[in-house]
């Protein structure tokens, strides 16, 4: 049995979700809305208009001091030295084996001040790992678990900018993808980041927990003209998967290297050294034994997390994520398969409740948003 609702952690917007008719579930120890109006409805709203998610369960870990960059560089795969103040990057928090402690966003808040946004289920683990390495390394780098200081609201969709712009003096058009700015949203001190987990344009808005409801309600009201939807974790999962974004704990974990997860683009190969670099360099030179691939099925049945990938009579791989996408209307997913099966077009056979179903390896992402029309 999972823990009782009383023991679950709640975001500052918990009562709001219940009042708005959110269907609540346990996720990574948190009491979170899985859906409001339905996964398909919410998914399509984000693809065509706008949707708003409470992602305050995500963690925030701050690293500050004259040696902050060195610690971030040691522990994460991407090259944080390339970040300007006001810029963010996707990265892996590394084990010495080249695998994931977590996948994170690294924000450069100031010259010597970084913020890592981490997965809800990994907050304590990540903090302990970063702090222990910081102590061992010595130097000037304070590590703080600042998760309780932030609520985080994701506003996603082609209309996200117009909705948010009506509530802020920040010129959102000047914030590029994976950059952020500070300012006020609905008269609340906020940090607005052009990032998200949906494959759509949009923003993630960091606000003080005590003001989260005010911002949430203001955004909901501002979104009324575009028929904004409140969205839950269900649509968040179908959207991220359609955009071929990985989910920690499903698609990769402490047993998966960054290259096996198909994330070579977040490795700063020019960096001098970082945890797990040796393993990654060896894998790059010698090739991989297995790798995550994107697949789609011929039929409608969903190949879900944990279902076996078969070849002949034996299991050769495993589905790590699977869903039926409301926008593309196909059963899609990720699977970890042997290197010989990773070319686009390779047939893939998955056992679904005792039956063999056929699919094939397809290019990533499943869905890519159209480039914006030229500015008038």
């Amino acid at each position: 049995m999972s823990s009782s609702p009383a023991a679950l952690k709640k975001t500052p917007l918990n009562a709001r979700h219940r009042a708005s008719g959110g269907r609540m579930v346990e996720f990574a120890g948190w009491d979170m809305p899985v859906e409001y109006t339905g996964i398909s409805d919410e998914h399509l709203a984000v693809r065509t208009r706008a949707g708003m998610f409470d992602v305050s369960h995500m963690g925030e870990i701050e690293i500050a001091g004259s040696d902050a960059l060195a610690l971030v560089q040691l522990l994460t795969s991407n090259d944080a030295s390339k970040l300007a103040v006001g810029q963010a990057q996707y990265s892996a928090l590394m084990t010495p084996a080249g695998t994931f402690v977590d996948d994170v966003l690294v924000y450069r808040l100031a010259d010597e001040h970084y913020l890592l946004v981490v997965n809800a289920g990994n907050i304590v683990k990540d903090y302990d790992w970063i702090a222990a390495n910081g102590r061992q390394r010595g130097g000037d780098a304070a590590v703080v678990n600042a998760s309780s200081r932030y609520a985080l609201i994701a506003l996603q969709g082609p209309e996200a900018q117009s909705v948010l712009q009506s509530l802020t003096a920040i010129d959102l058009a000047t914030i590029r993808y994976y950059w952020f700015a500070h300012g006020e949203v609905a008269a609340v001190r906020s940090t607005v980041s052009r990032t998200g987990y949906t494959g759509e344009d949009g923003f993630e808005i960091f606000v003080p927990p005590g003001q989260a409801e005010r911002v949430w309600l203001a955004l909901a009201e501002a979104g009324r003209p575009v028929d904004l939807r409140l969205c839950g974790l269900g649509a968040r999962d179908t959207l991220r998967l359609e955009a071929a974004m990985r989910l920690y704990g499903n698609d990769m974990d402490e047993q998966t290297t960054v290259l096996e997860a198909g994330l070579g683009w977040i490795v700063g190969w020019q960096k001098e050294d970082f945890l797990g670099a040796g393993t990654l360099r060896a894998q790059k030179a010698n090739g991989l034994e297995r790798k995550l691939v994107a697949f789609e099925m011929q039929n409608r049945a969903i190949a879900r997390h944990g279902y076996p990938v078969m070849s002949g009579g034996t299991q050769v791989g495993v589905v790590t994520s699977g869903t039926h996408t409301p926008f593309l209307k196909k059963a899609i997913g990720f699977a970890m398969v042997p290197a010989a099966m990773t070319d686009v077009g390779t047939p893939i056979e998955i056992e679904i409740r005792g039956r063999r179903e056929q699919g094939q390896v397809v290019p990533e992402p499943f869905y890519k948003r159209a480039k914006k029309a030229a500015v008038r």
Partner: protein
Amino acid sequence: MYPTDLKYTKDHEWIRLQDGEAAVGITDFAQRQLGDVVFVELPEVGRTLKQGEAFGTIESVKAVSDLFSPVSGEVTAVNPDLANHPEAVNAKPHETWMIRLRPSAAAEADALLDASAYANLAK
């Protein structure tokens, strides 16, 4: 909410008896619990089912559930429209039948829940 000409099970199926044949589907409560239905797997025509036996599966983005036969009998038809339009289960749950059966034990249906008893259960 729940049509009075149907009988219901605790597993949230309904059955409509008409001219010695029975149509089977799932209730509005069940479809709301499942969310958007993407796939319904149905048995072969001619299969004999016992009361309470799983005759297929219904899959939504969120979950997979077994479908249980409200009564014993032989499958005489499966709904051909569900292969391409499983979302009909969400849109019109009490009109979207999944299988038709020729019941082999008439008394079984009498013992199922009526609309008001089911409405109490599905709160």
